[in-house]
């Protein structure tokens, strides 16, 4: 098989693409390509990975313009004419080469009140939540998020408005709003309804299209819009 012509981003916010020639194999992932470059061609290349098997979300990068988990992206699926362009995840500051600074991603998670607000103590009995209740089903549809940032990289509004909380943070807020054990709902609705909150979502659905664990943040954000409207119209906001 002819070798791959791979362009890899080097540097920080300022930098350039560097070209490498990488042997192509049947059944090869983009992470395999990056690993080969760092081990055999240029040891100074910085990149993130951990599990290599599509469970941790660490290896998210921009591949030919699209945010993906590189360990779960087969070269066959994306290399047109044997070419690959690999860049750090979009919409985040670049630390070096393929590594992005995830701090603002998680800061927004906190700003959206994406953490559980409990009401019970250890002396209370367990909460009983039927798994097939309507609310719980909606929570379950969004609960598998591992904070990989692919949706955040895919989102047009994140690119256009640096204050936008983003799909992951809002999706997590939604799963908590629908969690009957959580007691912080009003605070959370206020947090997500602010200046660059759930209303800034224009349902482009890039997040839903790209999420590697098949969550639809668009659905959760639509739910938040409805809940916030109900609260506002009842004067609760």
């Amino acid at each position, binding site marked *: 098989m002819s070798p791959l012509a791979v362009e890899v981003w080097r540097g920080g916010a300022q930098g350039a693409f560097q070209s490498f020639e990488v042997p192509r194999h049947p059944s090869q992932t983009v992470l395999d390509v990056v690993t080969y470059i760092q081990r055999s061609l240029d040891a100074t290349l910085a990149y993130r990975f951990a599990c290599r098997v599509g469970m941790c979300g660490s290896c998210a990068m921009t591949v030919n313009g699209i945010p993906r988990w590189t360990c779960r992206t087969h070269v066959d699926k994306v290399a047109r004419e044997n070419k690959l362009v690999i860049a750090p995840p979009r919409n985040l500051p670049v630390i070096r080469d393929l590594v992005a600074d995830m701090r603002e991603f998680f800061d927004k998670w906190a700003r959206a009140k994406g953490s559980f607000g409990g009401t019970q103590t250890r002396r209370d009995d367990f909460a009983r939540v039927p798994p097939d209740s309507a609310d719980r089903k909606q929570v379950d549809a969004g609960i598998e998020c591992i904070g990989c940032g692919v949706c955040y990289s895919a989102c047009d509004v994140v690119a256009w*408005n640096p204050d936008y909380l983003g799909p992951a943070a809002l999706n997590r807020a939604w799963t908590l709003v629908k969690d009957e054990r959580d007691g912080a709902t009003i605070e959370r609705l206020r947090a997500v*309804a*602010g200046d660059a909150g759930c*209303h*800034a979502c224009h349902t482009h659905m890039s997040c839903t299209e790209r999420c590697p664990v098949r969550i639809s943040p668009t659905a959760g954000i639509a739910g938040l819009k409805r809940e916030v409207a109900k609260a*506002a*119209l009842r004067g609760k906001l």
Partner: protein
Amino acid sequence: MNAQRETLLWVAQRASAAVLAACVLVHLATIIYAVRGGLSAAEILGRTHGNAAWLTFYSIFVLGVAVHAPIGLRSVFIEWLGWRGVSRDVALLLFSFLLLVMGMRAVLVLFA
């Protein structure tokens, strides 16, 4: 109260969208019908003049537009022009007023 304001703008936008969806469907059908065989002032006014039903319909249409268009532009101004601050919303309020005044003037000229 940002949350309150953003939420009410969203509600107003979706509500006006629903009203306008109905108005636009009627308007498109009407225009496609009326435009056959060409247009003239006399022909148009012959149909519209003194018509209370159409007067009401188009007044609602104008009101809907005066709410919907500025709120829509607001997102574009924030996201594509980076226009922050009160001046943006003042400009949009003025635009809303412009649409209302010019729209109602047209309605009165044609239907009253």
